[in-house]
Protein backbone atom coordinates (compact mmCIF):
# COMPACT_ATOMS: atom_id res chain seq x y z
CA UNK A 1 0.00 0.00 0.00
CA UNK A 2 1.27 3.40 -0.86
CA UNK A 3 1.99 5.74 1.99
CA UNK A 4 -0.10 8.83 2.56
CA UNK A 5 1.91 11.93 1.71
CA UNK A 6 1.69 14.81 4.15
CA UNK A 7 3.28 18.11 3.12
CA UNK A 8 3.56 20.69 5.88
CA UNK A 9 4.19 24.33 5.06
CA UNK A 10 6.93 25.79 7.28
CA UNK A 11 6.82 29.31 5.87
CA UNK A 12 6.89 32.18 8.32
CA UNK A 13 3.17 32.73 8.82
CA UNK A 14 2.28 29.02 8.86
CA UNK A 15 5.08 28.44 11.36
CA UNK A 16 3.92 31.08 13.81
CA UNK A 17 0.36 29.84 13.45
CA UNK A 18 1.36 26.40 14.62
CA UNK A 19 2.89 24.24 11.91
CA UNK A 20 5.71 23.26 14.29
CA UNK A 21 3.11 21.40 16.36
CA UNK A 22 2.07 19.46 13.26
CA UNK A 23 5.69 18.51 12.59
CA UNK A 24 5.50 16.43 15.77
CA UNK A 25 3.88 13.84 13.48
CA UNK A 26 7.34 13.08 12.24
CA UNK A 27 8.83 12.29 15.63
CA UNK A 28 5.84 11.01 17.60
CA UNK A 29 3.00 9.92 15.30
CA UNK A 30 -0.03 8.07 16.70
CA UNK A 31 0.67 4.34 16.61
CA UNK A 32 -2.13 3.41 14.24
CA UNK A 33 -0.89 5.62 11.42
CA UNK A 34 2.84 5.66 12.16
CA UNK A 35 3.97 3.40 9.32
CA UNK A 36 1.38 4.61 6.85
CA UNK A 37 2.47 8.21 6.41
CA UNK A 38 5.31 10.01 4.75
CA UNK A 39 6.06 13.53 5.89
CA UNK A 40 7.64 16.30 3.91
CA UNK A 41 8.24 19.83 5.14
CA UNK A 42 8.14 22.62 2.64
CA UNK A 43 9.22 26.21 2.47
CA UNK A 44 6.40 28.68 1.78
CA UNK A 45 3.91 27.04 -0.61
CA UNK A 46 2.37 30.42 -1.45
CA UNK A 47 -1.13 29.53 -0.21
CA UNK A 48 -0.93 32.50 2.15
CA UNK A 49 -0.41 34.89 -0.76
CA UNK A 50 -2.60 33.43 -3.49
CA UNK A 51 -5.82 33.62 -1.56
CA UNK A 52 -9.04 35.56 -1.78
CA UNK A 53 -9.76 35.08 1.92
CA UNK A 54 -9.51 38.24 3.96
CA UNK A 55 -7.50 36.76 6.79
CA UNK A 56 -4.68 34.29 6.85
CA UNK A 57 -6.06 30.75 6.94
CA UNK A 58 -2.78 28.99 7.74
CA UNK A 59 -1.17 26.75 8.64
CA UNK A 60 -1.58 24.96 5.37
CA UNK A 61 -1.05 21.21 5.03
CA UNK A 62 -1.46 18.99 2.00
CA UNK A 63 -2.61 15.42 2.63
CA UNK A 64 -2.31 13.41 -0.58
CA UNK A 65 -2.59 16.66 -2.48
CA UNK A 66 -5.73 17.79 -0.66
CA UNK A 67 -5.40 21.17 1.06
CA UNK A 68 -6.25 21.55 4.73
CA UNK A 69 -6.61 25.15 5.91
CA UNK A 70 -6.15 26.23 9.52
CA UNK A 71 -4.59 22.86 10.10
CA UNK A 72 -3.63 21.40 13.44
CA UNK A 73 -2.42 18.04 14.70
CA UNK A 74 -5.94 16.56 15.16
CA UNK A 75 -7.23 17.80 11.83
CA UNK A 76 -4.33 16.21 9.96
CA UNK A 77 -4.52 12.91 11.88
CA UNK A 78 -8.30 12.74 11.32
CA UNK A 79 -7.84 13.35 7.63
CA UNK A 80 -5.28 10.54 7.44
CA UNK A 81 -7.63 8.16 9.29
CA UNK A 82 -10.46 9.13 6.96
CA UNK A 83 -8.38 8.24 3.91
CA UNK A 84 -7.26 4.96 5.52
CA UNK A 85 -10.88 4.03 6.26
CA UNK A 86 -11.89 4.71 2.67
CA UNK A 87 -9.13 2.44 1.42
CA UNK A 88 -10.21 -0.48 3.59
Amino acid at each position, binding site marked *: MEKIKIKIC*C*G*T*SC*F*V*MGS*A*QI*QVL*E*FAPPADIADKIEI*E*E*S*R*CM*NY*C*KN*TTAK*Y*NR*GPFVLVNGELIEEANFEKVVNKVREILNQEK
Partner: protein
Amino acid sequence: MNNSLFIDVGSYQKQKNGEDCYGDTIYSKKIPEERRVISILSDGLGSGVKANILSSMTTRMAMKFMEDNADLLRSSEIMMDALPICQTRKISYATFSIVDSELEGKTRIFEMDNPHFIFIRNNKSLSIKGRKFSSPKWKERAINASQIMTQPEDRIILISDGVTQAGIGNQKYPLGWGRQGCIDYILKEIQKDPRISSQTLAQKIVEEALNKEIGKKAGDDISCICIYFRIPRKLLVLTGPPFDEDKDHEFAELVSDYDGKVAICGGTTANIVERELCLKCQIDKTSFDTQIPMSSIMEGVDLVTEGILTLTDAYRMLKEGIDRKSNVASVRLVNLLLSSDKIDFVVGTKINIAHQDPNLPMELEIRRNIVKKIFRLLQSRYLKEISVRYL
Protein backbone atom coordinates in the same frame (compact mmCIF):
# COMPACT_ATOMS: atom_id res chain seq x y z
CA MET B 1 42.29 49.88 -2.77
CA ASN B 2 40.54 46.58 -2.53
CA ASN B 3 43.40 44.24 -1.78
CA SER B 4 43.70 45.46 1.79
CA LEU B 5 43.80 42.96 4.60
CA PHE B 6 41.34 42.40 7.35
CA ILE B 7 42.79 42.57 10.84
CA ASP B 8 41.26 40.17 13.33
CA VAL B 9 42.14 41.16 16.89
CA GLY B 10 41.38 38.95 19.86
CA SER B 11 42.51 39.01 23.47
CA TYR B 12 42.15 37.11 26.70
CA GLN B 13 43.22 37.79 30.28
CA LYS B 14 43.44 36.12 33.64
CA GLN B 15 44.16 38.06 36.80
CA LYS B 16 46.66 37.05 39.48
CA ASN B 17 45.18 34.52 41.87
CA GLY B 18 43.34 36.27 44.69
CA GLU B 19 43.01 39.62 42.97
CA ASP B 20 39.69 41.07 41.88
CA CYS B 21 40.88 43.06 38.91
CA TYR B 22 43.43 42.73 36.17
CA GLY B 23 46.88 44.25 36.64
CA ASP B 24 47.43 44.19 32.88
CA THR B 25 45.34 46.26 30.48
CA ILE B 26 44.45 45.50 26.90
CA TYR B 27 43.01 48.14 24.59
CA SER B 28 42.35 47.93 20.86
CA LYS B 29 40.82 50.48 18.58
CA LYS B 30 39.89 50.72 14.93
CA ILE B 31 40.33 54.05 13.16
CA PRO B 32 38.28 53.49 9.99
CA GLU B 33 39.05 56.83 8.32
CA GLU B 34 42.81 56.17 8.50
CA ARG B 35 42.41 52.43 7.92
CA ARG B 36 44.42 51.66 11.03
CA VAL B 37 44.05 49.31 13.96
CA ILE B 38 45.95 50.01 17.16
CA SER B 39 46.34 47.45 19.94
CA ILE B 40 48.08 48.06 23.24
CA LEU B 41 49.07 45.76 26.09
CA SER B 42 50.39 47.23 29.31
CA ASP B 43 51.55 45.53 32.49
CA GLY B 44 51.38 47.66 35.62
CA LEU B 45 53.81 47.37 38.51
CA GLY B 46 52.60 44.83 41.08
CA SER B 47 49.09 43.46 40.82
CA GLY B 48 45.50 44.24 41.66
CA VAL B 49 43.97 47.71 41.75
CA LYS B 50 47.28 49.58 41.87
CA ALA B 51 48.64 47.79 38.81
CA ASN B 52 45.34 48.23 37.07
CA ILE B 53 45.46 51.99 37.52
CA LEU B 54 49.03 52.18 36.24
CA SER B 55 48.42 49.99 33.22
CA SER B 56 45.09 51.50 32.23
CA MET B 57 46.54 55.01 32.49
CA THR B 58 49.39 53.89 30.25
CA THR B 59 47.18 52.30 27.60
CA ARG B 60 44.79 55.26 27.46
CA MET B 61 47.61 57.77 27.15
CA ALA B 62 49.49 55.66 24.61
CA MET B 63 46.35 55.25 22.52
CA LYS B 64 45.75 58.97 22.46
CA PHE B 65 49.38 59.67 21.47
CA MET B 66 49.35 56.99 18.76
CA GLU B 67 46.08 58.24 17.31
CA ASP B 68 47.52 61.72 17.04
CA ASN B 69 50.76 60.39 15.52
CA ALA B 70 52.73 62.11 18.28
CA ASP B 71 56.49 61.65 18.66
CA LEU B 72 56.96 58.41 20.53
CA LEU B 73 59.96 59.33 22.63
CA ARG B 74 58.33 62.50 23.89
CA SER B 75 55.05 60.65 24.49
CA SER B 76 56.68 57.90 26.48
CA GLU B 77 58.49 60.48 28.62
CA ILE B 78 55.15 62.09 29.39
CA MET B 79 53.63 58.73 30.21
CA MET B 80 56.45 57.78 32.57
CA ASP B 81 56.31 61.18 34.27
CA ALA B 82 52.56 61.03 34.68
CA LEU B 83 52.30 57.65 36.37
CA PRO B 84 51.85 57.83 40.16
CA ILE B 85 54.80 56.64 42.27
CA CYS B 86 54.33 53.39 44.21
CA GLN B 87 54.75 53.99 47.94
CA THR B 88 56.56 50.73 48.68
CA ARG B 89 58.83 50.64 45.68
CA LYS B 90 59.28 54.40 45.22
CA ILE B 91 59.06 54.14 41.46
CA SER B 92 56.37 54.65 38.87
CA TYR B 93 56.24 51.95 36.33
CA ALA B 94 54.20 50.20 33.69
CA THR B 95 55.37 48.38 30.58
CA PHE B 96 53.78 48.63 27.18
CA SER B 97 53.62 46.99 23.77
CA ILE B 98 51.94 48.89 20.97
CA VAL B 99 51.01 47.47 17.58
CA ASP B 100 49.95 50.05 15.02
CA SER B 101 48.74 48.33 11.85
CA GLU B 102 47.67 49.86 8.60
CA LEU B 103 45.30 47.86 6.43
CA GLU B 104 47.59 48.23 3.43
CA GLY B 105 50.24 46.20 5.15
CA LYS B 106 52.63 48.40 7.16
CA THR B 107 52.79 47.59 10.84
CA ARG B 108 54.89 49.31 13.48
CA ILE B 109 55.53 47.84 16.90
CA PHE B 110 56.86 49.67 19.95
CA GLU B 111 57.78 47.82 23.08
CA MET B 112 59.06 48.69 26.50
CA ASP B 113 60.01 45.91 28.92
CA ASN B 114 57.29 43.44 27.89
CA PRO B 115 58.33 40.05 26.53
CA HIS B 116 59.30 40.55 22.87
CA PHE B 117 56.33 40.12 20.52
CA ILE B 118 55.96 36.89 18.58
CA PHE B 119 55.69 37.15 14.81
CA ILE B 120 54.47 34.17 12.82
CA ARG B 121 54.65 33.79 9.06
CA ASN B 122 54.24 30.55 7.06
CA ASN B 123 53.89 28.64 10.30
CA LYS B 124 57.36 29.73 11.49
CA SER B 125 58.32 32.18 14.17
CA LEU B 126 60.52 34.89 12.69
CA SER B 127 62.66 37.13 14.83
CA ILE B 128 62.43 40.78 13.91
CA LYS B 129 65.36 43.02 14.70
CA GLY B 130 64.23 46.36 16.02
CA ARG B 131 65.90 49.64 16.74
CA LYS B 132 66.53 50.49 20.38
CA PHE B 133 66.37 54.01 21.77
CA SER B 134 65.73 55.70 25.08
CA SER B 135 65.13 59.17 26.36
CA PRO B 136 67.91 60.96 28.27
CA LYS B 137 65.55 61.28 31.19
CA TRP B 138 64.80 57.56 31.54
CA LYS B 139 68.00 55.95 30.23
CA GLU B 140 67.36 52.48 31.68
CA ARG B 141 64.01 52.17 29.95
CA ALA B 142 64.80 51.37 26.36
CA ILE B 143 62.10 51.34 23.76
CA ASN B 144 62.31 48.81 20.97
CA ALA B 145 60.80 49.85 17.64
CA SER B 146 60.20 47.38 14.79
CA GLN B 147 58.49 47.55 11.46
CA ILE B 148 56.95 44.78 9.38
CA MET B 149 55.28 44.71 5.99
CA THR B 150 52.52 42.28 6.75
CA GLN B 151 51.20 39.65 4.37
CA PRO B 152 47.99 37.63 4.48
CA GLU B 153 48.01 34.90 7.14
CA ASP B 154 50.63 36.69 9.28
CA ARG B 155 50.07 36.75 13.01
CA ILE B 156 51.46 38.98 15.73
CA ILE B 157 51.10 37.86 19.32
CA LEU B 158 51.70 40.04 22.37
CA ILE B 159 52.10 38.41 25.74
CA SER B 160 52.66 39.73 29.24
CA ASP B 161 55.39 38.32 31.47
CA GLY B 162 52.70 36.31 33.24
CA VAL B 163 52.76 34.02 30.21
CA THR B 164 56.52 33.58 29.92
CA GLN B 165 56.94 33.15 33.67
CA ALA B 166 54.03 30.78 34.08
CA GLY B 167 54.92 27.84 36.32
CA ILE B 168 58.12 29.44 37.56
CA GLY B 169 59.63 27.57 40.48
CA ASN B 170 57.90 24.25 39.97
CA GLN B 171 59.88 21.16 39.01
CA LYS B 172 58.93 20.96 35.36
CA TYR B 173 59.40 24.63 34.58
CA PRO B 174 61.98 25.98 37.06
CA LEU B 175 62.44 29.13 34.95
CA GLY B 176 58.87 29.34 33.77
CA TRP B 177 57.18 28.35 30.51
CA GLY B 178 59.38 30.80 28.61
CA ARG B 179 58.86 32.61 25.34
CA GLN B 180 60.12 29.63 23.34
CA GLY B 181 57.72 27.27 25.10
CA CYS B 182 54.91 29.64 24.24
CA ILE B 183 56.02 29.85 20.57
CA ASP B 184 56.16 26.05 20.28
CA TYR B 185 52.64 25.83 21.66
CA ILE B 186 51.31 28.51 19.28
CA LEU B 187 52.88 26.82 16.25
CA LYS B 188 51.34 23.51 17.29
CA GLU B 189 47.89 25.10 17.61
CA ILE B 190 48.16 26.87 14.26
CA GLN B 191 49.21 23.63 12.61
CA LYS B 192 46.14 21.94 14.07
CA ASP B 193 43.83 24.68 12.78
CA PRO B 194 45.52 27.07 10.32
CA ARG B 195 42.49 29.39 10.27
CA ILE B 196 42.11 29.62 14.05
CA SER B 197 40.59 32.96 15.06
CA SER B 198 42.53 35.42 17.20
CA GLN B 199 40.04 35.20 20.02
CA THR B 200 40.29 31.42 20.29
CA LEU B 201 44.08 31.45 20.02
CA ALA B 202 44.46 34.09 22.75
CA GLN B 203 42.19 32.14 25.04
CA LYS B 204 44.12 28.92 24.39
CA ILE B 205 47.48 30.55 25.14
CA VAL B 206 46.27 32.00 28.44
CA GLU B 207 44.65 28.73 29.47
CA GLU B 208 47.80 26.78 28.57
CA ALA B 209 49.89 29.20 30.64
CA LEU B 210 47.51 28.69 33.51
CA ASN B 211 47.94 24.91 33.19
CA LYS B 212 51.67 25.35 33.87
CA GLU B 213 51.02 27.08 37.17
CA ILE B 214 50.96 25.11 40.41
CA GLY B 215 47.34 24.25 41.19
CA LYS B 216 46.32 26.31 38.14
CA LYS B 217 46.65 29.44 40.25
CA ALA B 218 48.03 32.39 38.34
CA GLY B 219 51.20 33.73 40.01
CA ASP B 220 50.95 36.95 38.00
CA ASP B 221 48.49 38.57 35.64
CA ILE B 222 48.39 36.58 32.40
CA SER B 223 47.38 38.45 29.25
CA CYS B 224 47.58 37.88 25.53
CA ILE B 225 46.60 39.80 22.40
CA CYS B 226 46.54 38.02 19.05
CA ILE B 227 46.45 39.88 15.77
CA TYR B 228 45.67 37.96 12.61
CA PHE B 229 46.07 39.52 9.18
CA ARG B 230 43.94 37.86 6.55
CA ILE B 231 42.15 38.35 3.28
CA PRO B 232 38.59 39.29 4.26
CA ARG B 233 36.18 36.37 4.52
CA LYS B 234 33.17 37.44 2.54
CA LEU B 235 29.54 36.54 3.08
CA LEU B 236 26.48 37.38 0.99
CA VAL B 237 23.14 37.41 2.80
CA LEU B 238 20.17 37.33 0.47
CA THR B 239 16.80 37.97 2.05
CA GLY B 240 13.36 38.71 0.67
CA PRO B 241 11.97 38.59 -2.86
CA PRO B 242 12.77 41.61 -5.09
CA PHE B 243 10.04 44.25 -5.32
CA ASP B 244 9.96 43.89 -9.08
CA GLU B 245 9.45 40.30 -10.24
CA ASP B 246 11.36 41.01 -13.44
CA LYS B 247 14.48 41.29 -11.34
CA ASP B 248 14.22 37.74 -10.00
CA HIS B 249 16.85 36.42 -12.35
CA GLU B 250 19.32 39.22 -11.70
CA PHE B 251 18.72 38.63 -8.00
CA ALA B 252 19.39 34.90 -8.23
CA GLU B 253 22.53 35.43 -10.28
CA LEU B 254 24.08 37.32 -7.38
CA VAL B 255 24.39 33.90 -5.72
CA SER B 256 26.21 32.22 -8.59
CA ASP B 257 28.51 35.21 -9.19
CA TYR B 258 29.61 35.73 -5.60
CA ASP B 259 33.18 34.97 -4.52
CA GLY B 260 32.52 34.01 -0.93
CA LYS B 261 30.02 32.26 1.28
CA VAL B 262 26.30 32.69 0.67
CA ALA B 263 23.35 32.59 3.06
CA ILE B 264 19.71 32.82 1.95
CA CYS B 265 17.18 33.89 4.58
CA GLY B 266 13.63 33.48 3.36
CA GLY B 267 11.47 30.63 2.08
CA THR B 268 10.23 32.51 -0.97
CA THR B 269 13.72 33.88 -1.60
CA ALA B 270 15.07 30.32 -1.64
CA ASN B 271 12.26 29.29 -4.00
CA ILE B 272 13.23 32.08 -6.40
CA VAL B 273 16.90 31.10 -6.40
CA GLU B 274 15.97 27.43 -6.77
CA ARG B 275 13.74 28.23 -9.75
CA GLU B 276 16.03 30.71 -11.51
CA LEU B 277 19.26 28.76 -11.13
CA CYS B 278 17.67 25.30 -11.45
CA LEU B 279 19.21 24.17 -8.17
CA LYS B 280 17.84 21.51 -5.87
CA CYS B 281 16.85 22.60 -2.41
CA GLN B 282 15.84 20.21 0.35
CA ILE B 283 14.74 20.70 3.93
CA ASP B 284 17.39 19.65 6.45
CA LYS B 285 15.51 17.69 9.09
CA THR B 286 18.42 17.65 11.51
CA SER B 287 17.78 21.33 12.26
CA PHE B 288 14.33 20.75 13.77
CA ASP B 289 13.34 23.11 16.56
CA THR B 290 9.93 24.02 17.93
CA GLN B 291 10.59 27.75 17.74
CA ILE B 292 12.69 28.23 14.62
CA PRO B 293 11.76 26.80 11.21
CA MET B 294 14.17 24.25 9.81
CA SER B 295 16.99 25.17 7.46
CA SER B 296 17.44 23.70 3.98
CA ILE B 297 20.36 22.42 1.97
CA MET B 298 21.04 23.90 -1.46
CA GLU B 299 23.98 23.19 -3.72
CA GLY B 300 26.45 26.08 -3.82
CA VAL B 301 24.80 27.86 -0.91
CA ASP B 302 26.17 27.60 2.61
CA LEU B 303 22.93 28.13 4.49
CA VAL B 304 19.23 28.41 3.61
CA THR B 305 16.79 29.44 6.33
CA GLU B 306 13.33 30.87 6.81
CA GLY B 307 13.26 34.70 6.83
CA ILE B 308 11.82 36.99 9.48
CA LEU B 309 11.64 34.61 12.45
CA THR B 310 15.20 33.37 11.93
CA LEU B 311 16.58 36.88 11.41
CA THR B 312 14.76 38.18 14.50
CA ASP B 313 16.12 35.32 16.58
CA ALA B 314 19.62 35.79 15.15
CA TYR B 315 19.48 39.47 16.11
CA ARG B 316 18.44 38.56 19.65
CA MET B 317 21.33 36.10 19.96
CA LEU B 318 23.85 38.57 18.54
CA LYS B 319 22.77 40.86 21.35
CA GLU B 320 22.36 38.42 24.20
CA GLY B 321 24.52 35.44 23.28
CA ILE B 322 23.76 32.07 21.74
CA ASP B 323 21.29 30.06 23.82
CA ARG B 324 20.11 27.35 21.42
CA LYS B 325 21.58 24.12 20.07
CA SER B 326 24.20 24.45 17.36
CA ASN B 327 22.11 22.70 14.69
CA VAL B 328 19.25 25.24 14.82
CA ALA B 329 18.98 27.48 11.75
CA SER B 330 19.32 30.79 13.60
CA VAL B 331 22.46 29.62 15.46
CA ARG B 332 24.02 28.55 12.17
CA LEU B 333 23.25 31.97 10.77
CA VAL B 334 24.82 33.74 13.76
CA ASN B 335 27.95 31.60 13.50
CA LEU B 336 28.22 32.31 9.79
CA LEU B 337 27.86 36.06 10.39
CA LEU B 338 30.44 36.06 13.17
CA SER B 339 33.01 34.06 11.23
CA SER B 340 32.88 36.50 8.29
CA ASP B 341 34.73 39.82 8.01
CA LYS B 342 32.90 41.52 5.18
CA ILE B 343 29.16 40.98 4.87
CA ASP B 344 27.04 42.08 1.91
CA PHE B 345 23.30 42.18 2.52
CA VAL B 346 20.93 42.18 -0.43
CA VAL B 347 17.40 42.85 0.74
CA GLY B 348 14.35 42.24 -1.45
CA THR B 349 11.71 44.69 -0.33
CA LYS B 350 8.54 42.95 -1.38
CA ILE B 351 6.17 42.63 1.56
CA ASN B 352 4.28 39.45 2.23
CA ILE B 353 0.71 40.64 2.91
CA ALA B 354 -0.04 37.45 4.83
CA HIS B 355 2.45 38.51 7.51
CA GLN B 356 0.54 41.70 8.22
CA ASP B 357 -2.58 39.85 9.42
CA PRO B 358 -3.28 41.22 12.94
CA ASN B 359 -4.39 37.76 14.06
CA LEU B 360 -0.87 36.38 13.79
CA PRO B 361 0.20 35.51 17.31
CA MET B 362 3.73 36.87 17.14
CA GLU B 363 5.27 40.18 16.33
CA LEU B 364 6.54 39.97 12.78
CA GLU B 365 8.99 42.67 11.81
CA ILE B 366 9.22 44.25 8.42
CA ARG B 367 12.30 42.84 6.73
CA ARG B 368 14.05 46.15 6.13
CA ASN B 369 13.87 47.03 9.81
CA ILE B 370 15.25 43.81 11.17
CA VAL B 371 18.09 43.78 8.64
CA LYS B 372 18.94 47.35 9.62
CA LYS B 373 19.11 46.36 13.29
CA ILE B 374 21.33 43.38 12.52
CA PHE B 375 23.87 45.21 10.40
CA ARG B 376 24.15 48.10 12.84
CA LEU B 377 24.93 45.67 15.62
CA LEU B 378 27.44 43.82 13.46
CA GLN B 379 29.15 47.11 12.66
CA SER B 380 29.28 48.60 16.13
CA ARG B 381 29.84 45.62 18.36
CA TYR B 382 31.56 43.12 16.09
CA LEU B 383 33.53 45.60 13.92
CA LYS B 384 32.39 43.95 10.67
CA GLU B 385 32.46 45.68 7.31
CA ILE B 386 28.90 45.83 6.00
CA SER B 387 27.24 46.81 2.74
CA VAL B 388 23.48 46.81 2.15
CA ARG B 389 21.62 46.90 -1.14
CA TYR B 390 17.86 47.02 -1.59
CA LEU B 391 16.30 45.42 -4.61
